[in-house]
């Protein structure tokens, strides 16, 4: 798979882009969906990322892989769209984070996500979810996350800790239900 996606010395071509869309867009979309929890925003984030990557393909370094480069841009686009759609979404970092799982719109979206794991992620607060996804699924450094969402490293670590704690409790609950 990797050999197909790796790009030579010239900037990636239109065909290269089409190929990675076919092969890897489900990964980009999933990452964006986990961040935004909104299928429309996730789709828009991927499209924005593709168009941005296309415009800046001359800057693409051939030591990287095109799909991972677009993946990173898509995650950033998802964060931007989340911030635009919910201004102040990350402000709760400086205070106690309330679990907002009972908001009706979230309940509806949880249902639409149709997966225990997605529902489990959705029960986290926005900040906890974004920090968990960026730290453990996207492998961002703590400093990168804190800079991205405008807080300090300690707050990010706390949010990740709370997220893992809640997800563990959720998983134990699911295991009990299954057994």
């Amino acid at each position: 798979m990797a050999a197909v996606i790796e790009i030579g010395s010239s900037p990636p071509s239109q065909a290269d882009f089409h190929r990675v869309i076919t092969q890897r867009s489900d990964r980009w979309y999933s990452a964006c969906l986990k961040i935004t929890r909104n299928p429309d925003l996730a789709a828009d984030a991927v499209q924005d990322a593709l168009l941005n990557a296309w415009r800046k393909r001359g800057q693409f370094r051939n030591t990287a892989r095109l799909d991972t480069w677009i993946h990173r841009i898509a995650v950033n686009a998802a964060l931007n769209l989340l911030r635009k759609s919910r201004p102040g979404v990350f402000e709760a970092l400086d205070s106690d984070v309330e679990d907002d799982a009972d908001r009706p719109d979230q309940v509806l979206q949880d249902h639409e996500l149709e997966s225990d794991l997605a529902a489990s992620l959705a029960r986290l607060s926005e900040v906890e979810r974004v920090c968990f996804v960026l730290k453990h699924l996207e492998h961002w450094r703590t400093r990168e996350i804190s800079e991205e969402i405008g807080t300090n490293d300690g707050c990010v670590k706390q949010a990740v800790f709370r997220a893992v704690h809640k997800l563990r409790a959720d998983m134990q609950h699911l295991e009990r239900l299954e057994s």
Partner: protein
Amino acid sequence: MNDKTDDIIAAHRADIHSPPPATVQRWHDALDAAAAAEATRDVPRPRVLQPSSFFLGMAMAAALALGIAIGFFVADEDPVTELPLVAESPRPANAVPGALSRGLQVHFRDSRAQIMSLPEAQDRTMLVLRIIEQNRMFENAATSNDAPKLARVLRAFEPILLQLAADDLAPADAEALQAQLAFELNVMLTKLGAESSDDTQPHDLGNTT
């Protein structure tokens, strides 16, 4: 990190959601449109009259996506999903302030007039690219005015405008695109016009049929 946490992380990593096929097609189309527009800007080519059913197909797909987006925008909203994001907000979510609504009407009207009387090839490209720039400005304005659905509709115009910007577009394809865009703009103008009777109030474009 213990095994349990590792298991949780591994499970979430493996939890992949496939996008709908129409969405993937939209990404392919948007890429083609961007490439076509870029080729037009960078390397002016003589116009070639040729049947291009593939290109027309892409254009129609973009038009369809735009139509669906407008349909969502115009349709009645589920009240559950339309709760205001901020409880104290003085206006409902997706309401468009009067000033923005009036600016949009001018933008749509001008765009419609320009699109219906587009010059050929290179001049047309420059004109359409200017329309795209203005469209992006209004999209940003909609976003900062807490009207996300309107922002999405405006964003949905872009792929089809990019198709129209290509200078090797066959005349029949260009005509079809122009007609489709004019229709979509008429829908938006009708919508905005119907709700501008009271200019003192923000227009709740998302909650009216």
